[in-house]
């Protein structure tokens, strides 16, 4: 048993790599040889994980993936526990439909981070996705429970159809965020162009954000500014075309 399982990419990926087998809880029970033998698809061709990654460590619920993973899709899919750290950029569908544990991306993520499969009624049902960069498109679509934090920018489909949970975006969010939001919170530090089906409620200091931001600082080491921790937020309720129990919280200053 090791403290960490470290997967290091052997060579730059020339084609999309479907790597949904990489999830901390699944690797926790496996030895090095079993991990190397996990099925993986590269450019639609079947292969095994060991063809693309060197594997160091075994039987640990803490996994570090190293390398240029921009074309590696689906890492952390369905993860139910453990800690998965991705050193660098990652492809689409990271943390897809996960239900527990933490996925920590030290870089940018592709579309549909912390998201749902096409046509699925719900996506993430628990756990935390931390992206220390931007998301090239949507994040947290149809999330049922859990948390997605993006320290950079996010696309307009972020939080689309969210049922509950929390999304925090430090940077800018493209127009249309929160469409079809039922419950849940979308928090932004910059101006947010909301759908017309959101209605202004008040400007206040949400106490749960202070708990959340201190947690992000202490547990994940995220640089949340004091002004954002103690500041006031505009609260917009919506999506009123849906259940209307959700909220967009936009930072309004100190």
């Amino acid at each position: 048993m090791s403290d960490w399982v470290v997967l290091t990419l052997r060579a730059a990926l020339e084609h999309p790599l479907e790597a949904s087998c990489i999830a901390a809880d699944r690797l926790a029970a496996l030895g090095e040889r079993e991990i190397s033998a996990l099925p993986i698809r590269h450019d639609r061709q079947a292969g095994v994980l060991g063809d693309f990654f060197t594997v160091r460590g075994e039987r640990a619920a803490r996994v570090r993936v190293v390398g240029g993973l921009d074309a590696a899709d689906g890492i952390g899919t369905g993860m139910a526990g453990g800690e998965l750290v991705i050193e660098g950029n990652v492809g689409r569908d990271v943390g897809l439909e996960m239900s527990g544990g933490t996925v920590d991306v030290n870089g940018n993520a592709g579309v549909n981070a912390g998201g749902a499969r096409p046509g699925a009624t719900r996506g993430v049902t628990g756990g935390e996705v931390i992206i220390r960069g931007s998301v090239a498109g949507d994040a947290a679509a149809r999330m049922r429970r859990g948390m997605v934090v993006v320290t950079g920018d996010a696309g307009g489909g972020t939080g689309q159809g969210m049922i509950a949970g929390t999304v925090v975006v430090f940077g800018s969010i493209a127009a249309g965020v929160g469409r079809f939001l039922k419950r849940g919170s979308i928090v932004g530090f910059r101006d947010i162009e909301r759908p017309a089906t959101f209605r202004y409620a008040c400007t206040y200091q949400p106490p749960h954000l202070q708990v959340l931001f201190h947690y992000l600082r202490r547990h994940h080491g995220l640089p949340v500014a004091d002004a954002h921790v103690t500041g006031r937020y505009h609260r917009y309720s919506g999506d009123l075309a849906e259940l209307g129990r959700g909220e967009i919280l936009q930072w309004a200053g100190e």
Partner: protein
Amino acid sequence: MQINGVVIEDTFAEAFTMRAARIVITGKNAKWAREAALKLTGFATSVIGCKCEAGIERELAGTETPDGRPGLAVLFLTMDKESLPQRLIERLGQTVLTCPTTACFDGLTAAPDRLAVGKALRVFGDGFQGSKVVGGRRYWRVPVMEGEFLIDETFGMQKAVGGGNFLILGEDADAALGAAEAAVGAMDPIPGVVLPFPGGVVRSGSKVGSRRYKNMIATTNDAYSPTLRAITATALPEGVNSVLEIVLDGLDAPSIEAAMRAGIQAACRPGVRAISAGNYGGKLGPHHFHLRKIMGT
């Protein structure tokens, strides 16, 4: 045994097993956290008449609280595990929920026994309440006129010790009070302990039952009442004209012992003749704190 010329009597304090919760109250500043804590712990001196005992354990810096704001830790105790959630729901709902800027958190997060206090109080939101899970803890957001009240869904409960005590036998009332104040000051920094009585001091220590009134479960401790020295079986040494009691509750016996040690040491000063303790012959409470053993270690 003597400390600074003060006799430490060869006796023990008899204490009981209770159930405790630690409530963390934060506020916009320490003033508002204290306002809520004072109301919460008001009229909570003794289970005999208050159904619970409570006190402020210590102040908390922002680095110690979930929301980074200044706060206070309160220990809250009842005699049984069934009544603890009910008392908490009543009191938190009337004192902390109502207090501007405050939030309310569990201070015993590792305790396996969980009390669904926040879950019960959430219904004040009349269906408009919502929850948030942060770091595996569920918090309830209750909409109120000020904005929102935030409270942990559950609070931990653990076994605790209630009724630790010692008696300060003074030459006069001023000497006893001065020694009691010194004792309280020395016990204040000890973690895991609260002194539920006013200023931490009791002037009306009691005995079990009554000589005259059958319906009374506690009456004046006549053996330690100076005005009754001549007409009752007194326990007062010569020269003692006033007695004050320090009662303390704690999360465990070592915390009680540490606080008693600090308090008794501070109380042994000029004007104090002896330090004693209250007990019931050792037949009622499972925790016995022997004064000489505590002060000898």
